[in-house]
């Protein structure tokens, strides 16, 4: 069912929703950008329509709501191991089409690849998604080429036009919340983009000669350009890697915890094995590993591309390395055979 709401109506609906859920949406953190006098747009808990930044792309994604940057698994006391408490409230995540497609990738790894992840599952079961319509593409986006520009599997959608908010609600439990606050009931189709400035040509993953591509000199430039900071991974909505960590509390060495923290295949030590072995020491090799994962070998394993074309890796790279440019170069190299 579709609805038109004023800002006042939307705020009332958000208040209703927040009785059951925490609401996560892109939020503008004024003067918190990486350069002076710039803002940072990233996910945060919101209460009202004005808390949401709906006109710009967030530099970081929703994923920390599903896979926290640091997530405690167990607490240790002298002789006991106690599982961390589950969160009892649900969450609503407001996100764009590319990011909603990314949820499918997170699910693939955490729920289907090997045994189900207990901690992911217990959060995931409580999450609902509200699609934010895109009227036009942002800088560096290439969702159309990745086939992620349209989403249909949302619980509700939200578009803002001329100060009015348009909602398409698919989760029937919420219909009364929106209906009570609506000005009008009408058909709403969330907006989506049909073209982007940046375009990528994808390699044919059925015919690609991986060994040849790996040995190609195209990766060498990244040996020096890339500084292995890992920002591309941490801003990526589809990156899922983590490292297990045990710590003990410094003021009481007898107590501690086991947790997982985000990890990055671009950062040193990612592949270190006991006794000093490590793999992909050159930054170009790490770039190659990441690019092939996003647009070649993930598809070979699961049948669809991992990259959703949000372009955040390009937005945040301090060395101005372009992922989409690398994909296009890869496709040319792959075609040459």
């Amino acid at each position, binding site marked *: 069912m579709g609805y038109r709401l004023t800002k006042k109506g939307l705020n009332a609906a958000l208040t209703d929703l927040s009785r059951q859920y925490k609401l996560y949406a892109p939020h503008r953190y004024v003067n918190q950008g990486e350069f002076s006098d710039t803002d940072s747009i990233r996910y945060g808990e919101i209460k009202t329509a004005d808390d949401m930044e709906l006109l710009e792309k967030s530099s970081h994604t929703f994923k920390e709501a599903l896979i926290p940057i640091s997530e405690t*698994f*167990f607490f*240790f006391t002298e002789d006991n*191991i106690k*599982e961390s408490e589950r969160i009892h409230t649900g969450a609503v995540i407001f996100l764009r089409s590319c990011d909603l497609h990314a949820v499918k990738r997170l699910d693939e*790894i*955490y729920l289907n*690849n*090997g*045994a*189900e*992840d*207990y*901690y992911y*599952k*217990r959060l995931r079961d409580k999450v609902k998604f509200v699609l934010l319509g895109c009227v036009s593409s942002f800088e560096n986006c290439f969702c159309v080429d990745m086939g992620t520009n349209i989403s249909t599997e949302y619980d509700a959608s939200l578009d803002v036009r001329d100060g009015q908010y348009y909602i398409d609600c698919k989760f029937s439990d919420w219909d009364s919340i929106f209906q009570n606050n609506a000005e009008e009931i009408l058909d709403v189709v969330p907006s989506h983009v049909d073209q982007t400035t940046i375009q990528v040509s994808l390699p044919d993953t059925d015919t690609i000669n*991986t*060994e040849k591509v*790996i040995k190609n000199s195209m990766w060498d430039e990244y040996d020096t350009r890339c500084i292995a900071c890992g920002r591309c991974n941490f801003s990526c909505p589809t990156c*899922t*890697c*983590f*490292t*297990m*960590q*045990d*710590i*003990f509390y410094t003021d009481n*060495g007898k107590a*501690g915890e*086991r947790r*997982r923290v985000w*990890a990055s*295949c671009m950062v040193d030590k*990612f*592949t*270190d*094995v*006991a*006794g*000093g*072995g490590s*793999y*992909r020491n050159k930054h170009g*090799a790490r770039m190659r*590993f990441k690019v*092939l*994962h996003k647009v070649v*070998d*993930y598809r*070979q*394993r699961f049948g669809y591309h991992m990259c959703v074309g949000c372009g955040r890796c390009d937005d945040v790279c301090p060395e101005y390395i372009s992922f989409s440019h690398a994909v296009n170069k890869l496709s040319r190299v792959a075609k040459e055979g």
Partner: protein
Amino acid sequence: MRTNEYAPFLSKVLSVQKHTDIEYTFRMAYEGIVKPGQFFEVSIPKFGEAPISISGYGDGYVELTIRRVGKVTNEIFEYYEGDSLFIRGPYGNGFDLDDYRGKELVVVAGGTGLSPVRGVIDYFASNPEQVKSLKVIAGFKSPSDILFFEDIARWKKTSQVILTVDCGEADFECSIGFVTEHIPKLKFEDVSKAAAIVVGPPAMMHFSSLELMKIGFLEKNIWISQERKMCCGIGKCGHCKINDVYVCVDGPVFNYTKGKTLID
């Protein structure tokens, strides 16, 4: 009730066998089916977890050969008979003994690479009628690095064992040279049907497999086992991924036809 794969359980240390100053085998209480080549995540709360391959198994126990090289393994070495460690697993595919039954089998192992294949060698050395022949080439850096010395002596009764060290003087029967140098000396009735397991450092596995193929081994009859950082053991953490493969769930044992395509 959903299971939490990350939850470890306590396992009692039944005995500790010391091979070298930095390599001990811990016999741990475990009831359940395991295969050689699989691994457990062994942990000590507040220190961390480490993936350790199964070096032996039997009724009510598994053996884990651990090298003291890091934060977790350092701490494990403070644990002795009667203490308990936390473990979870087993993970990974392990070696399938049916791949080797009825064949001429050669196992080429380098250093601690002998640990994940020890269960396979033990099985066929104790049941020699199940293979046409069993040959073992075990290489170590120096005489003081040799693992499973007593096992090697026992295997010699039913199989051909070449124990070799890269350099150094030994006061026991032992050859000098890399494992690859001993491969051409092996004799097989029909090398095209013989099976090989190669486990060790990446370069050693690569060159040993090439040597085996030089003397007539078919790619499809060679198996290798990969060592990678495995934080989760269940296909999630990403550290062990190579190409489209997750070593922890698809491996660590790979047939060479697949294994040769894995490029880090």
